[in-house]
């Protein structure tokens, strides 16, 4: 006797559809829909459109014609691009190193029980709190000529004035230092939170084993904050590469393009040269570079 096939069995897709329409799926989907829609409108669509623009020769007023990879070829063969990439790398690396060391050092200090710790914590956050325009313009006034505050101090101690914004090397240096000053509070605050979350018994165990303070720092503290450190470096890399305010407000990307990073270069192409295609191409190359870095750092974090 043969067994008759069940002709009423539902196909797989229908079963899956029924599952998707179950309350446990529908409710979160409805709740997520506004956010997803918002992301599509304000992020995805502009990115797609911008990516399309990078293949055109359009201006701010006209869409232009599709020119294939011409913009990317032109960009990658442009000395200005490689200069901007180099400066962006130096700027980001120095900023990450500087604000990490400064932030970690201050975070370690603020961990200690000392008078006025709360006040110091607030004061140390000020560089992050003050609007960028205010802080950067104030810095500019402090460094821009022989009568500026910095040079008043230098000449007071018998030195010669340094024209920080009038020399390419000094301009790069001062831009980096100001960026570190603006960035370290975030690093400090985040690392302080990470330090405070470390289990104290680990230090006690290390002390019992005879570890010195330096050994405890190297073998307990650093490993414990490694993951958050990677995330912070990731964020700081993104913010440094994408920083328009510091080089622009301080030196307009000068002198002689010395402080022109990729973002300033994209700005120049788009608004100074009316070349949206090149501006978009520069922006997307910057994005690709950042994505590669993000990928590398995330892999590093997962391995740890």
């Amino acid at each position: 006797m043969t067994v008759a096939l069940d002709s009423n069995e539902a196909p797989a897709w229908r079963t899956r559809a029924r599952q998707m329409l179950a309350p446990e799926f529908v409710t979160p989907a409805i709740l997520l829909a506004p956010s997803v829609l918002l992301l599509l409108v304000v992020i995805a669509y502009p990115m797609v459109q911008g990516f399309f623009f990078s293949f055109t020769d359009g201006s701010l007023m006209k869409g232009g014609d599709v020119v294939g990879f011409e913009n990317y070829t032109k960009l990658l063969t442009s000395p200005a691009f490689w200069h901007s990439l180099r400066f962006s790398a130096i700027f980001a690396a120095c900023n990450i190193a500087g604000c990490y060391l400064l932030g970690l050092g201050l975070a370690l200090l603020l961990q200690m029980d000392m008078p006025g710790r709360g006040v110091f914590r607030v004061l140390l956050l000020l560089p992050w709190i003050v609007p960028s325009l205010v802080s950067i313009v104030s810095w500019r006034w402090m460094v821009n000529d022989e009568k500026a505050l910095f040079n008043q101090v230098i000449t007071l101690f018998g030195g010669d004035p340094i024209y920080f914004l009038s020399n390419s090397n000094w301009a790069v240096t001062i831009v980096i230092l100001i960026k570190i000053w603006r960035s370290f509070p975030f690093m400090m605050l985040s690392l302080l939170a990470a330090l405070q979350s470390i289990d104290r018994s680990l230090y006690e165990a290390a002390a019992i084993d005879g570890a010195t303070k330096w050994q405890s720092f190297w073998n307990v503290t650093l490993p414990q904050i490694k993951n958050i450190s990677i995330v912070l470096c990731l964020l700081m890399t993104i913010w440094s590469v994408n920083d328009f305010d510091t080089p622009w407000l301080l030196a307009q990307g000068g002198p002689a393009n010395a402080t022109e990073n990729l973002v300033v270069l994209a700005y120049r192409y788009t608004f100074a040269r009316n070349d949206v295609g090149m501006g978009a191409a520069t922006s997307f190359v910057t994005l690709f570079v950042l994505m590669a870095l993000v990928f590398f750092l995330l892999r590093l974090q997962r391995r740890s």
Partner: protein
Amino acid sequence: MSRPNFMRRNMIKLALAGTALGLCAGPALAQPVSIDFWDMIWGGPTYPAAAQALVDKYNAEHPDVQVVYRSVPWTNWYETFVTAIASGSAPDISTGAGFQAVQLYDQGAIMPVDEVVAQLDANDFAPGALDALRYDDHYVGLPWAVDLRVLFYRKDVLEAAGVAVPTNWEEFRAAAKTLTADGKFGLVSSGDSGGMHWILASSINNGGGLFDADGNAALNGERTTEALQYLTDLKTDGSVNPASVGYVNDDARGSFFRGEAAFLLNGPLLPDQAGGVKDQIGIVPPMQALHGDVGTVYWVNNIMVYNQTEHPAETMAFLKWWSDNALPLWTEGKAGNLPARQSIQADAYFQDNPSVKYIIDTYLPVSKTMSAAVGGTFPQLNEIDGDGFLMSLMQSIWQGQPLGDNLAAAQSHLEEIMAD
């Protein structure tokens, strides 16, 4: 009379009365034509108020038109206009940067104003001003002002050092070097567009410029290269305030007003903006350059009409009125440029001002635009003016870098712009 008939008659009467009332009210309810006028800030804080007052006067005299005035700061001015145009919300009329009209015209955004030019006396405009706005056989804008670069000096500084006012480049170089001592410098400049103007002014002064007679990029032309080398020599002499590279124009002006520099290249109304040291500021006569040429750079500030206007006739009419009645922009608004109309220049406000009169009489006749040698106007000029590569070149010169490679890079970039 029956009731239905009575009602019908009354309804007819009401209808007729309503119609009559509507016809009478029609003109009173008609809306005036609205014209959006965007105006750059061409002076200090008093300028926008004076311009608004002038617009109010026009509105009072022309009740059928309502001009809505908007003051536009120079910061990000280009983005302001191009995004407005791209989004279909351009003004009906605006003033703008020297080459804004021609670039926007080339991109289809500007309406020629030939009909207004035809109503005006061409000879009333400053020499070359109309030509500076002529492109593709049309006037892409109407000249309303001219802005030129003049070399000023500190009378007190030169007198204290016993230095005569220079009359040629050789004398200027010697004077600047002599006047550099004790924390003061021969000249102060800036790393922004104010510094770039040294390139333009000096190259034109020396009979060169950015182009040759055929319109080709010629930043590396003989006369221009000589001028740039001259600027390099000034730096080598130590005559240029080292802070100039990092300065913006306001910094340079401040330094000059404080007497920290003997010479400054700036706009024509600088003395009037100098406050208490006004009487200490003198005008260097147009100097003879290396080969005896005399000249400086100037920009013809334009006022332009947009294709997006829905009221071209009214806008053109306002444009002509504005041109004819612009004097208060200077007398009340303290605009920092000079009128393009010679009939306005003839006003006592300018003629009774010794500095301004001298500049009108001696500098304006020898002024040339950025298109010197080739003449006219073309869209690339706006890009050249806004690109920043000439600023970078000037910054490299003021840093004392060798001219060769930087000039070659700038020439290459200029060629690239002209090829677009």
